[in-house]
């Protein structure tokens, strides 16, 4: 029951956070230089006087600010995020179209980065000071310092341009009209490069954290107690060291989740992956600020979701959470 309570509190906090972000959106538009309505209309829409007039009425700029905020938040809660003149669709519809692709990409990258990161970090700490540790540490350092978009482009350069091994653009092979298993495999092939590049950066983060955490935990008193009991080294590594080292790593994963979603923007842009990130990039190019803010709100929602998932995993991993 305690866990349910804890999760409900976190859920409420998450919703509150989203409402506040929506308010930030609201403030930003009004704080920016220029007429809020033409900003919201976007470059394309601003040239259509009818559209602009419609927006002006909808916004009710003559109303006092709190009323405007209230009506804005009301619209947000009903999932009305406005209309993109350039793309001639409601913002919500555009986002929903792209949501599955982004979820697929970031979800895969999240799992991949955690699994590889923890595995490599544990391996490095196990052989601390030897060549395999140095190798993993150096590799992690390099990937940690590499700009994500550049890594993506290098991947394209090597695997597509030079070696013609993996597809670089899009979600599936255009015009191939595949079905069923073939379609899944095709998407999978297209998923490899984007997911791998997105995962590599964060894998470095988790590998470093896991290694440091495991080395620290290995010094703790209860590990000495386990040794004094004659417990085998393998079991000590798994049940005592790794198990305790996971706690800060899970916490970190929650914090990094937001970063990964931001990184998706760059990855999707390079690989032309039809997700929300790519949509944001298009909105930038087209100066469609309404769409941009809508995407921003959605990416924040996804970050909150990831945070909730890692919070939940944390409750599974740390039995003391009942008391907190």
């Amino acid at each position, binding site marked *: 029951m305690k866990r349910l309570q804890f999760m409900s509190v976190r859920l409420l906090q*998450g919703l509150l*956070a989203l409402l*506040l*972000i929506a308010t930030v*959106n609201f403030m*930003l*538009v009004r704080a*920016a*230089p220029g007429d809020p309505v033409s*900003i919201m209309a976007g470059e394309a829409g601003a040239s259509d006087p009818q559209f602009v007039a419609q927006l002006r009425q909808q916004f009710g700029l003559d109303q006092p600010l709190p009323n405007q905020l209230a009506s804005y938040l009301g619209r947000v809660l009903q999932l009305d995020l406005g209309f993109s003149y350039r793309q001639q669709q409601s913002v919500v519809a555009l986002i929903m179209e792209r949501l599955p692709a982004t979820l697929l990409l970031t979800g895969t990258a999240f799992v991949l980065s955690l699994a590889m990161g923890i595995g490599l970090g544990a391996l490095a700490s196990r052989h601390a000071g030897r060549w395999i540790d140095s190798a993993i540490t150096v590799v992690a*350092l*390099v990937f*940690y*310092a*590499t*700009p*994500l*978009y*550049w890594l993506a*482009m*290098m991947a*394209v*350069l090597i695997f597509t*341009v030079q070696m013609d091994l993996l597809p670089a653009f899009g979600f599936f092979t255009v015009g191939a009209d595949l079905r069923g298993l073939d379609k899944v495999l095709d998407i999978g092939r297209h998923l490899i490069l984007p997911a791998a590049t997105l995962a590599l950066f964060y894998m470095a983060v988790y590998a470093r954290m896991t290694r440091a955490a495991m080395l620290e935990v290995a010094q703790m008193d209860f590990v000495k107690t386990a040794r004094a009991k004659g417990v085998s080294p393998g079991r000590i590594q798994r049940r005592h060291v790794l198990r305790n080292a996971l706690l800060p790593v899970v916490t970190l994963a929650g*914090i990094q989740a*937001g*970063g990964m*979603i*931001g*990184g998706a*923007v*760059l990855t999707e*842009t*390079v690989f032309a992956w039809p997700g929300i990130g790519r949509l*944001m*990039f298009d909105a*930038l*190019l087209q100066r469609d*600020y309404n769409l*941009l*803010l809508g*995407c*921003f709100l959605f*990416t*924040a929602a*996804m*970050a*909150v979701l990831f*945070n909730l998932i890692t919070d939940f995993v944390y409750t599974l991993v740390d039995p003391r959470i009942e008391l907190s």
Partner: protein
Amino acid sequence: MKSSFWRRFRRNKGAVFGLVVLALVALVTALGPLVAQHDPWDMAGMPFAAPLAEPGMPLGTDTMGRDILSGIVAGARVSLLIGVVSTVVSLFIGVGVGAVAGYFGGWIDATLMRFTELFQAIPSFALAIVLVAIFEPSVQSIVAAIAVVSWPPVARLVRSEFLTLRQRDFVAAAQLAGQSTPRIILTQILPNAASPIVVMASLMIATAILLESSLSFLGLGDPNRMSWGYMVGSARTVLRQAWWMAVFPGVAILMTVLALNLVGEGLNDGLNARADGKGK
């Protein structure tokens, strides 16, 4: 104390390497015009010239015939400038919030932490994009945007340091001596929290440079400045024809950020030999 710091720093080979690279970057930035022979915006040669194909342009040219090497040199300036300034601003905000929260505790701490957590829940890159887009890209808006999204981790670190240090008896002794609160924060607690803050600062500069280059890549850089991210961005659609347009600027970013990370680790080793003063 200084000499033992250098001794420990030197022991970390990676850190020394990083320091050398950073010195090189700083040198290149300072000497600027001497190294780069052309204005980065000038159409100095044939478009799409491969590296070493044209004299005086060892790294090739881009779609408009601009010298890549000159672009890299100019970009160094922008990246370092934005990286350092935004980190300083971020530190001001973060240290301020963290120190107040950690020292006073109670509901002040709780409110400030809720606020910080909220900020951290927002995907920072997305927020930076939105901020720069809406306020029009310029060096100032980029610095402000990066500072705004980067301060929460600093605040958390400073807060946790202050919370621990606040409990130490020497703070109680200072209170009994009659020292005022601002004096205690500045002269008693802050010097002891300095080491982790310094280490974090070097890592933050690295992150700021990555952030700035990512923004430039997406076209949100200051339109009057040539920056590394912009160069990689302009290579995106012509990767097949001119791989050098993407590779060299990217390597420049990679080396600089890597160097900063390595120096940060060296600083960590050098400053934290004795974590809490226990001589035992």
